[in-house]
């Protein structure tokens, strides 16, 4: 008795220490493992949707899927910027969640860390998923999860401002037409376009449609195409077609500028659709044009569902059922509608457009979108992305001309990824 009691105290102290040293909210599920063996066992799910509480549609769907798989679900929602480090710490201590829903560019990082199982191990079926969406979760020929849904960027426009300037949004199909439209809008007393060029991943995310739309490649930032994309943005700022505040704009503050009703265009994502309805002016959405015309490939946003490595490999079976439940067929429609995403499969995308014709533009945009970590860049992408947002900021704030900014960015990216 004595020894077991002191043992328990020691374990308790150990856990307290771990909790103190890592994070206040580190789960102590390990502790309860023996107790829950008799009852249906508890499976932990971590997601980056802290905005949904226990009574939300999303959490109820998770619980229903748990019941179907014969397990109880313990779900925790984390802030998306916290989640990566939480998962790394949890994996270090051997108590990663059973199911993890995580932002797609993080997947390759976690895969590199050896935290995630491959679809070969966990038997998830990804055959129906569009290859361009799956790309973000693949590296070295392995797939590390299923996209739960996708979103991407497009151009919102304010009909009133465009009408006043005499611009037909349907004519905005290439860079020249867009710049001409911005000029007309500015001359008619309106404001041109707002976007986010902040010095974080968000800035690179918003810049990529123009970078890729110019024909540039992430492995060569200082190509003439890459420089052309930076020059496009820089010229807009110089001519007053875009406000100077874009340098500091997050996607949210950029949206707030558009919501004032003064701006003709805003580059933003699917997630603003609900806010657009509330904006109080007629709006529309067009794909971001490529330099030479047609829609530019925008980066895919949205999360992947994956199954982290467990010591007890027997847990994968139930986890696989949980993930399949969230991503298969009609449940996918429910999940993506709940989270306001575009579905990752063709068939569900068609159902979505049938239900809401406004989603048509977004489905098209998602079809041509590209994963940031795709093209086998994987964990190299973040090291390329940081010089990109740095160069964009340097050019926009006129501390360096576009060519010089991109040449320096290429040097930095090359030395960081070698």
């Amino acid at each position, binding site marked *: 008795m004595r020894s077991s009691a002191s043992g328990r105290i020691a374990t308790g102290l150990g856990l307290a*220490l771990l909790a*103190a*040293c890592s994070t206040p909210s580190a789960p102590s599920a390990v502790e309860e493992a023996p107790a829950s063996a008799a009852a249906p066992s508890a499976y932990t799910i971590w997601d980056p949707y802290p905005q949904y509480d226990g009574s939300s549609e999303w959490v109820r769907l998770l619980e229903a899927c748990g019941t179907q798989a014969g397990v109880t679900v313990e779900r925790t929602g984390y802030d998306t*910027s916290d989640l*990566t*480090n939480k998962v*790394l710490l949890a*994996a*270090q201590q051997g108590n990663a969640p059973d199911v993890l829903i995580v932002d797609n*560019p*993080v997947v390759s*990082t*976690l895969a*590199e*860390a*050896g*935290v995630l199982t491959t679809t070969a191990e966990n038997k998830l079926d990804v055959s129906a998923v569009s290859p361009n969406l799956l790309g973000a979760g693949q590296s070295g020929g392995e797939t590390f999860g299923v996209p739960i849904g996708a979103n991407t960027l497009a151009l919102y426009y304010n009909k009133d401002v465009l009408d006043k300037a005499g611009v037909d949004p349907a004519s905005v199909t290439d860079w020249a037409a867009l710049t001409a439209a911005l000029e007309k809008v500015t001359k008619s007393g309106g404001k041109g376009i707002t976007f986010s060029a*902040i*010095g*974080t*991943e968000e800035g690179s995310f918003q810049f990529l449609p123009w970078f890729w739309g110019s024909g540039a490649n992430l492995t060569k930032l200082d190509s003439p195409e890459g420089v052309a994309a930076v020059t496009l943005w820089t010229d807009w700022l110089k001519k007053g077609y875009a*406000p*100077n*505040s874009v*340098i*500091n704009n997050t996607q949210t503050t950029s949206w707030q*500028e558009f919501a004032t009703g003064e701006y003709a265009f805003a580059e933003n994502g699917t997630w603003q659709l609900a806010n657009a309805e509330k904006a109080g002016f007629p709006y529309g959405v067009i794909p971001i044009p490529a330099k030479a015309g047609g829609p530019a490939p925008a980066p895919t946003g949205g999360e992947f569902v994956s199954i982290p490595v467990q010591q007890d490999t027997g847990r994968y079976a139930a986890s696989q059922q949980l993930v399949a439940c969230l991503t298969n067929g009609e449940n996918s429609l429910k999940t993506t509608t709940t989270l306001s995403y575009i579905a990752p499969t063709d068939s569900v995308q068609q159902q979505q457009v049938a239900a809401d014709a406004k989603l048509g533009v977004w489905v098209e945009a998602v079809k041509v979108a590209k994963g940031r970590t795709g093209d086998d860049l994987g*964990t190299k*992408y*973040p*090291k390329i*992305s*940081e010089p990109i947002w*740095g*160069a964009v*900021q*340097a050019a*926009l*704030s006129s*501390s*360096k001309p576009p060519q010089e900014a991109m040449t320096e960015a290429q040097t930095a990216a090359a030395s960081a990824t070698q």
Partner: protein
Amino acid sequence: MRVRLGSGQWAAWAFLAPVVVYLVVFYAYPLYRNVELSLRNYTVRSFVRGDAPFAGFDNYLKVFDDPAFGPALWHTVVFTVVSLVFQFTIGLALALFFVRNFPLSATLRALFLVPWLLPLIVSASTWTWLLNSESGVVNAALGVVGLGPVNWLTSPDWSLWSVTIANIWIGVPFNLVVLYSGLQAIPASVYEAAALDGANRRQRFWRITFPLLRPVSAITLLLGLVYTLKVFDIIWIMTRGGPSGSSTTFATWSYRLGFGNLVPSFGPGAAVGNLLIVAALVFGLVYVRTLHRRVP
């Protein structure tokens, strides 16, 4: 058997235990981990597996070699020195003003504490709105008096000054409170004696107030220094250290290295953090030295 501890000593150790455990768990261990983190070559994979190879001072060399090191050091020095000078001067002026106890002085003094009571995210976000290039109140006011708009947060020439101004505003109340209580501790009889000897106001300040306030000033400046060196929230919320690094200090750089990228570089991030700790420690030791010399 001969070195048996008496019951008194056991009790002494028992009384000591809580504070020792507290110090070890919350101070010594995290500090040790941070030093260890900075001496190993961590990748995400080795972070999870806990098998990062020992790298000696490689992370420090990498940080020193980084083109961002020079500017970040310069920004940290400018940000800290300018903040301290203005916070202290304004704080002292206000303390001298309020020590004269006029009607409503207590209410006014309470109002001056507002910046200190606000959560940093609130004050920093408010400053961001005020200084916005397009729709900010500051530029609107400048426009009224005929001055062109200034890109406070988006121009590399202004961003560091903007965050410094915000930091001064936040730091003034602290200086005011501490210096005010220091002023009250100076006996009135000294001033009376000086007045009898015919000292004017300037002489009374430089010959009495300033020297007698020196110990309080020293601790105010030291605490201000440590506090300013580690200022992170204001800069991060207002500019993210940008545009293109023009307002990056060691604190924001360390955060960016460790957490601001999808692939964190824990080692260099911890190295920059340790440089900050060392800087604060050096000034702390200087303070202890000077204090030691004065006390006989």
